[in-house]
């Protein structure tokens, strides 16, 4: 994985001092809260309902064991013993004091981490496929390009005060595990007819109150022009994105209102000016960064192993975890393992200090010192030997992280909701907890099959409800928390936005409604191989509406 050189180190150290100075001026009164707010947001510091929340960047979701140990230490020292992994592959601490933040940032800098641009109306921390560099279906590892974007976007002087936030995601395979079509810019590595690798560029996707699937703005972009093209999009957006209404300020609205052709013409014209200039990525720099992402020293293994096969046969609980929580690897004898932070009754994405240390130890011992965070709020060991899985699983079960539910209904995404967030209209975590308890039976979950359930506590859609096969949106109506159900969304390469199925349900009825929805699917699916999403796409909303609301 990437390691800072002296320039990166100096940059982040100076940034810590810059923020320390800003905090001091705020505490002294030289900065008003209005003046300070964008500064602290650009350093990931939110003022929430009860305390400050600090969002630490985990660029493209990749981190080392040393970094994970540091995140664990910070959770004990400055928080109440927890960290919360987010849908943008970052980690949040919910109980931070303003005066502590410079010290926290200084500790992060020691392990080559920061909180730069994890919030604010600027280019946010870049995300990528959590199986990058490990998955068998990949054209090329997207992370070197994500790292180039990280550096280019970090304190870009022209784009610190955009109309609204701006999110970029990169994948290296046709399979989209990073929801690139729901980002302001989504990049996908592709091969052209000449067998050259470049980027397919999508623009204007997003969730929030006006969800849009991104448009493909360019079929093929040469790799060395990545930064020139992305800067061209940003320059067009910075000038012409709406600033009169923050709900219409994202680039998705600009693309929607101006039309893709007009935006493409403006971007291509700007790109024409930049092509061949200082933003062209020098081959030497590309090679320097690629070198950090070379394969670890994989052993030559046979694809399976007698002891491993025996363990699968003798231990059905282990076999279930392997079936659901491991993903094929490009090397024989290896898999990527998902650690689902979704134990029954727990808040999705939460890990306590001890668990964070366990994760770090597992990464160090079994996965070449590397861990990933997925946008589904799980942690991944990207490169593990199949013969080590039994030990890994046992350790996870001991630490309360052995939930064998990856990709199943209990693998819920949920935002922090009204328990923490100042923007929320309704609670999310208790709903997620109740649903995971209702569906705690693993046999039943297995029978239901692949099902993505996503919960947002308000229309800002941090819990990605628009792309849930089943989405739940918390709304406030006359001081009552109501939950609307959407069906048929997908954040993957078959991207679609879920449809609101009808009026919302009160908190004590939403779990029943989810159960009814799932029951309807089980009754009408063609066979057990037809997934929830396939069934919904075949039959539409009507059978679900009838069961939920009765026939009119």
């Amino acid at each position, binding site marked *: *994985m990437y*390691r800072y*050189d002296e*320039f*990166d180190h*100096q*940059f982040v150290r*100076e*940034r810590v001092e*810059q923020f320390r*100075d*800003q905090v001091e*001026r705020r505490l002294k009164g*030289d*900065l008003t809260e209005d*003046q300070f707010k*964008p*500064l602290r947001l650009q350093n990931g510091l939110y003022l929430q309902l009860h305390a400050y929340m600090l969002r630490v960047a985990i660029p493209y979701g990749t981190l*080392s*064991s040393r970094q994970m140990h540091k995140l664990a230490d910070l959770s004990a020292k400055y928080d109440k013993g927890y960290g919360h992994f987010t849908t943008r592959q970052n980690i949040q601490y919910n109980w931070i004091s303003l005066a502590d933040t410079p010290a926290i940032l200084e500790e992060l800098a020691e392990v080559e981490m920061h909180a730069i641009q994890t919030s604010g*109306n600027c280019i946010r921390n870049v995300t990528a496929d959590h199986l990058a560099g490990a998955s068998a279906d990949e054209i090329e590892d997207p992370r070197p390009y994500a790292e180039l974007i990280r*550096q*280019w976007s*970090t*304190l*870009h*002087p*022209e*784009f*610190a*005060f*955009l109309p609204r936030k701006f999110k970029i995601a990169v994948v290296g395979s046709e399979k989209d595990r990073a929801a690139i079509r729901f980002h302001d810019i989504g990049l996908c590595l592709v091969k052209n007819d000449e067998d050259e690798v470049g980027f397919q560029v999508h623009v204007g996707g997003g969730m929030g109150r006006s969800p849009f699937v991104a448009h493909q703005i360019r079929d093929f972009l040469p790799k060395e022009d990545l930064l020139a093209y992305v800067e061209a999009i940003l*320059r067009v957006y*910075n*000038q012409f994105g709406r*600033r009169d209404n923050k709900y219409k300020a994202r680039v998705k609205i600009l693309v929607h209102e101006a039309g893709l052709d007009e935006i493409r013409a403006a971007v291509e014209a700007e790109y024409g*000016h930049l092509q061949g*200039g*200082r*933003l062209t*990525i*020098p*081959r*030497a*720099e590309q*090679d*320097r960064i690629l*070198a*950090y992402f*070379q394969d*670890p020293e994989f052993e030559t293994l046979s694809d399976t192993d007698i002891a491993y096969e025996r363990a699968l046969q003798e231990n059905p609980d282990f076999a279930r975890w392997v079936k659901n929580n491991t993903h094929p690897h490009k090397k024989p004898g290896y898999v990527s393992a998902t650690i689902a932070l979704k134990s029954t009754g727990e808040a999705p994405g939460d890990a306590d200090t001890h668990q964070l240390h366990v994760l770090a130890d597992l990464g*160090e011992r079994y996965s*070449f*010192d*590397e861990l990933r965070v997925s946008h589904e709020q799980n942690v991944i060991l990207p490169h593990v030997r199949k013969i080590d899985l039994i030990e890994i699983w046992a350790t996870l079960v001991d630490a309360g992280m052995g939930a064998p539910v990856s990709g199943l209904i209990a693998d819920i995404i949920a935002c922090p909701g009204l328990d923490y967030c100042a923007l929320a209209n309704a609670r999310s975590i208790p709903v997620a907890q109740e649903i995971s308890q209702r569906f705690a039976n693993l046999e039943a979950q297995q029978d239901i099959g692949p099902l993505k359930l996503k919960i947002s506590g308000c229309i800002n859609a941090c819990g990605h409800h628009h792309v849930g096969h089943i989405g739940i949106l918390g709304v406030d109506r006359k001081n009552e928390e109501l939950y609307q159900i959407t069906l048929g969304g997908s954040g993957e390469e078959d991207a679609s936005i879920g449809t609101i199925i009808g009026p919302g349900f009160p908190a004590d009825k939403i779990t029943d409604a989810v159960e009814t929805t799932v029951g309807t699917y089980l009754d009408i699916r063609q066979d057990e191989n037809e997934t929830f999403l396939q069934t919904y796409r075949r039959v539409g909303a009507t059978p679900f509406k009838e069961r939920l609301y009765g026939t009119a």
Partner: protein
Amino acid sequence: MTILRTFRTALGGNRSDIKSIRQETDTPATAIDVDTLKNLKAGDTGRDLVLALKPDDRVEELSGLLERVSLITVDFPAYTDGRGYSQCYLLRERLGFTGDVRAVGDILLDQLDFYERCGFSSYVVTDAPTIARLEKAGHTGLSQTYQPSANTGLTIIEKRIGRSLSSTDDSVLTVTVPKAPYDKPQEIQFSHF
């Protein structure tokens, strides 16, 4: 009090190379807007015009119209309105304007470095804590940058390349990469292209 700070970003110096700090009353009253500039006839007026840009003015439409302009003010109605950064970038990099480009409006300490890097050569400050700080210690910018933007200093990438090019053998670049899970460095060689 108003402080006008002038430096020489786009003129070839270091971006913190201050030319002068002097007190001024305000933006020059003689400033004209874009429409007036477009309607000027040859010989209407002399040189050294002052052009006042509004945030929604299209800079690229000014191509060929700036020969008689010596100062352009770029307005930041709120410091969170970032359109002026792109306007200045385009004035410098696209139109090649070499006169004074001045940031005016809601100008605060923590944005000054961004102004300089986008090609502004002066700004007008009225915020008292910002003035006090500028007189004492300068602004809060970092010494390294990842983006070329409109300033003339080398980016971090260019410094890396420069360092490797100035090494002994200019056909081979040696990069030292610590490789996980061990911290021992591993030598990897690449050819330049």
